[in-house]
Structure formats: structure tokens, C-alpha cells
């Protein structure tokens, strides 16, 4: 019960229109954007670190948002994305997935294809 209440409070308190607009803008303006804990140079979570490594391996530039220093984005994005956890990789305005999906796509070569196609249309 406590857990549910906490989530509800979190959701209603910070789902401001302004934050939603900021997120939509970030996703629209960046072909590849990663919402992560920490920065690519200093990730603060193993899942974020692994996702960054997959992206770096693909050799494409990407934007990132550190959700630890942007608590309002951290609280709001899961509701928009229908995805409860971080990191979240977005390409061309669409959620690709979290660490496990990115890792699997990296292993299969699918990730490189996705981000390269994306650059070609830039």
C-alpha cells in the first residue's frame, strides 16, 4: 500500500505541463537521445553504463539527459513513455528500450543498423 501511494503522489505532484513540453522537445529535437543516470563519462548506474557502451560501440553521436540532476524529468518521463525504469533510449522520437533491449540489439547488430539509418536521414 505504501508503495502505491508513493508512486501516486510522485506522479500527480510533478506531471506539470512544462516538464512534459520539455521532454517532448528533447525527444523531437534529438535523433538519438539517452535518458540515463549520470553522464556518459561518469555513469552512476551499471545499467546506464552498459547502455552507453553499446551506443559508443556503434560510433554514433548521441544526446543525453542525466535524470539524477533532473528529478522532474525522472518523475515525469516514465508516464509519457509507458516505461517505468531508466536508462531509456529514444531514436527518431520512439522509445527503443532499456539496457537489456539495447544490449540484445547490440549483440545482434540491430542497434548499429538503427542508429546508422537514423544518421543517414539526418
Amino acid at each position, binding site marked *: 500500500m505504501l508503495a502505491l501511494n508513493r508512486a501516486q503522489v510522485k506522479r500527480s505532484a510533478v506531471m506539470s505541463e512544462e516538464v512534459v513540453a520539455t521532454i517532448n522537445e528533447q525527444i523531437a529535437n534529438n535523433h538519438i537521445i539517452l535518458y540515463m543516470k549520470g553522464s556518459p563519462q561518469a555513469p552512476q548506474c551499471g545499467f546506464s553504463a552498459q547502455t552507453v557502451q553499446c551506443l559508443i560501440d556503434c560510433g554514433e553521436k548521441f544526446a543525453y539527459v542525466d535524470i539524477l540532476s533532473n528529478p522532474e524529468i525522472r518523475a515525469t518521463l516514465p508516464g509519457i513513455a509507458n516505461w*517505468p525504469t531508466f536508462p531509456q533510449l529514444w531514436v527518431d522520437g520512439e*522509445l527503443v528500450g*532499456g539496457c537489456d533491449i539495447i544490449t540484445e*540489439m547490440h549483440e545482434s547488430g540491430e542497434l548499429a543498423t538503427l542508429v546508422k539509418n537514423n544518421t543517414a536521414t539526418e
Partner: protein
Amino acid sequence: MIVQNQIESKLADSFELLHLEVLNESGGHNVPPGSESHFKVVLVSPEFEDVRLLARHRRVNEVLATELAGSVHALAIHTYTDAEWRERFGETPMSPPCLGGKSGEKA
């Protein structure tokens, strides 16, 4: 083991499963001993046939929404169809699934 059991039974109730593994990986993180904060789940289900990874993970996240909003801080999700699982772990094939026969009956 409370959260772990909860995760196990919720997943077992929500999917038609050939294989389910729920691992408490909290020990590898910066949390007190005995914590139930970091989990890894492995699900093998025919329901994942022709379903994209994103949608598979969303289903798992939805089933465990309460846990994720509460004490569970990290959830690694690995989902496979029967064929994907066999291909990936071909060296050590899984035990055949139960076909519903009762003990004492001949196979």
C-alpha cells in the same frame, strides 16, 4: 524472500511459461545485506512469439508495476520464445515442459 516470491508468483500467474527464473541480484549493489531491491527475471513463453522486445518488456513491467513503484529499484528482463531460448542455450537444453500428465501415468 518476500518480494522475490511475490515476483515469481505474479509472473507465473500472468504468463504461459516454459521457464521462469527470478534472481535477487541485490547483493552486487550498494544496499544493506538481505535487501530485495535488484532483480533479474528470465521468462520463456510461447506468448512472446512475434512480439517485439519493447512490448514483451512492457508486459513484464505492467505485471510488476506495484513492485517497481515500491521497493524494487532495478529489474533486468530477459524474454525468449521457445526457439530463441533453445538457440541461445543450445548447449544446455532446458528440461521438457510439463504436459499436464499426473504422476503414475506413463509418458
